[in-house]
């Protein structure tokens, strides 16, 4: 039977639905960990700046099956590599994976549960987060991607998690990605939606020895939505994991990437948050250099307007014996209004002595020298400001390998930075 959370808190409602049949033991374990817990408050150090009080008083129900029009979300490079989930359920009629090469397993979990034996086991060195457990307890379906040894997948895969909420609902998107030795993959993961809802996605990534995963993560949730995401990635010897998380939507969002690097592995963990109005975007990242000679690179940028708020907490741990570690972290933030706010904190824990670690954090306005340079070329002050703001954000998009995605995100950034009047900046 379902272990119910005791007490009057929103978690009770969130766990109110029936426990799905598959992976019963995983779900029971998660429910046990959740028993008696409540939503974190700003008294918890980890949630000091991100107030979940907003969630109180909203009863998030189970998300019904529904249909959506995805024509506005198709990307030409990925028309035949698309899996779509709507309100947490696989949507076969709008999915199309016909172009995925043979050998790659790319299915909804409900169709391929035998391929999901690694579910819940990635990042077992780390504590399970509350929203991660919530997902594990109640997710209905999700995607599993398994790329076999040495297969280099030429086409990028496209995963769309769509939420359509007429009344407040809770959804639990789930993704498991396994790259076997020497495999290579490009993956685009998008979260979009309409209405007021809570989405708690969990992404588990295993990159085996010498494998390479490039992972674009686009959060374009509805502005009424709450997005509380967990990512756990383990990168094997000499493997590479490159991710870019682009946050545009949601009333409140939190990204919690956790990455463990084995010997000689490489990771990049870049981020961009573009915030306005009363939006809050929080990134709490954890990069674990567990073994020697791994390299990590992290560039996190936020543009904050209105009375929006961005939070960045970048933890890097270099384990004892992880000699030759090279870890670089940059947090750069642009404040566009008086009421905008950024709280940024690097957190380096270094237990090895032969390491190269650097971090930097900057919060401020546009550089007057840059403004003057553009003005000296004939642009008026407003155009110069808009172009620089655009450039500040677009910098993170420059290396997105999927051209159509890069273009559409640039356009989105242009619109949000009032740079559209400047014409095509591609």
């Amino acid at each position, binding site marked *: 039977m379902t272990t119910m959370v005791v007490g009057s808190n929103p978690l009770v409602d969130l766990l109110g639905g029936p426990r799905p049949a598959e992976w019963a033991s995983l779900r029971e374990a998660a429910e046990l960990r959740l028993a008696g817990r409540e939503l974190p408050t700003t008294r918890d150090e980890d949630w000091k700046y991100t107030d979940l009080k907003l969630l109180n008083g909203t009863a998030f129900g189970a998300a019904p099956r529904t249909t959506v029009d995805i024509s506005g979300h198709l990307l030409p490079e990925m028309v035949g590599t698309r899996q779509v989930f709507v309100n947490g359920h696989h949507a076969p009629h709008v999915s199309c994976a016909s172009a995925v090469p043979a050998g790659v397993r790319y299915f909804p979990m409900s169709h391929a549960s035998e391929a999901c034996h690694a579910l819940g086991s990635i990042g077992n060195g780390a504590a399970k987060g509350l929203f991660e457990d919530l997902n594990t307890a109640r997710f209905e379906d999700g995607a599993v991607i398994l790329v076999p040894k040495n297969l280099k997948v030429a086409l990028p895969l496209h995963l769309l998690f769509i939420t359509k909420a007429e009344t407040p609902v809770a959804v639990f998107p789930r993704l498991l990605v396994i790259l076997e030795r020497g495999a290579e993959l490009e993956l685009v993961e998008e979260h979009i939606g309409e209405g007021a809802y809570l989405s708690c996605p969990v992404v588990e990534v295993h990159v085996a020895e010498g494998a390479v995963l490039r992972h674009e993560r686009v959060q374009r949730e509805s502005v009424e939505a709450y997005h509380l995401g967990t990512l756990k990635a383990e990168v094997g010897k000499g493997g590479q994991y490159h991710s870019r998380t682009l946050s545009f939507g949601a009333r409140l969002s939190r990204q919690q990437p956790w990455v463990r690097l084995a010997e000689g592995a490489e990771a990049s963990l870049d981020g961009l948050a573009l915030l306005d109005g009363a939006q809050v975007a929080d990134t709490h990242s954890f990069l674990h250099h567990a073994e020697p000679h791994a390299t990590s690179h992290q560039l996190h940028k936020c543009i904050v307007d209105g009375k929006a708020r961005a939070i960045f907490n970048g933890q890097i741990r270099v384990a004892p014996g992880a000699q030759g570690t090279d870890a670089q972290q940059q947090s750069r933030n642009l404040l566009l209004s008086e009421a905008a706010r950024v709280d940024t904190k690097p957190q380096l824990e270094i237990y090895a002595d032969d390491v190269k670690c650097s971090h930097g954090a900057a919060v401020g306005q546009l550089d*007057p020298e840059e403004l*003057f340079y553009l003005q*000296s070329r004939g642009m008026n002050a407003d155009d110069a400001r808009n172009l620089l703001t655009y450039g500040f954000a677009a910098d993170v998009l420059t290396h997105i390998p999927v051209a159509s995605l890069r273009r559409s995100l640039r356009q989105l950034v242009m619109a949000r930075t009032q740079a559209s009047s*400047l014409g095509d900046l591609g």
Partner: protein
Amino acid sequence: MLSIKNLTASINGTPVLKGIDLELKAGEIHAIMGPNGSGKSTLGKVLVGHPAYEVTGGEVLYEGKNLFEMEPDARARAGIFMGFQHPIEVPGVSNASFLRLAYNKKAEAEGRDELDPLEFDDFIHEKIKLVAMKEEFLDRSLNEGFSGGEKKRNEILQMAVLEPKLAILDELDSGLDIDALRVLGDAVNKLQRPDRALLIITHFPRILETIQPQFVHVLSGGRILKSAGKELAIELEDRGYDWVLEEAAAGSQR
């Protein structure tokens, strides 16, 4: 074209220019030379309206109009260009987009047709030949990760795109090897026309072998100490600056 009278300027309250007089006519090439810290770069930056400098006195007329009543961008659209010693890097904005934007702002101001991305593509491919720039530098972010020499090449490319009436080039030769200096010097010469004027700011006379000025001025301590023809540059190459400073000091004692 440009008439500077008794110009004084300061930065953070410290006077840097202490009374500059200079006349530039269309078709002329002037060189401003002088030791480091003499105020040469300041003069250029004041003319293009850098916000760090405060004009404290004097007058500058550009084509008969009071230069200091124009914003920096209006000066640019009116045909003034400065090639900077240390051009700024702008990540996220491609060089080609930036160049097209700058071109179109000027075209709009002059009532000429703006160019769409395809038309501009043809246009810019002719221009990059002039400065021998590799095509890949068009797609890269503006000046980001460019070497010192590549940045200078990009400044002259901007000059070729904007075709200014008055171009001020600040220490064009710094960061350039001899071959690149010759290429860029030749490009500047090709862009010079009877209706345009050039002001070359340089510490070293070397660049003046390629871009030959009719007038050479030695600036030191915020004042022009000596003005003469291009033979002065050759003399400075041989003798350095000290003798000019000594001569000026002796002159002021008399």
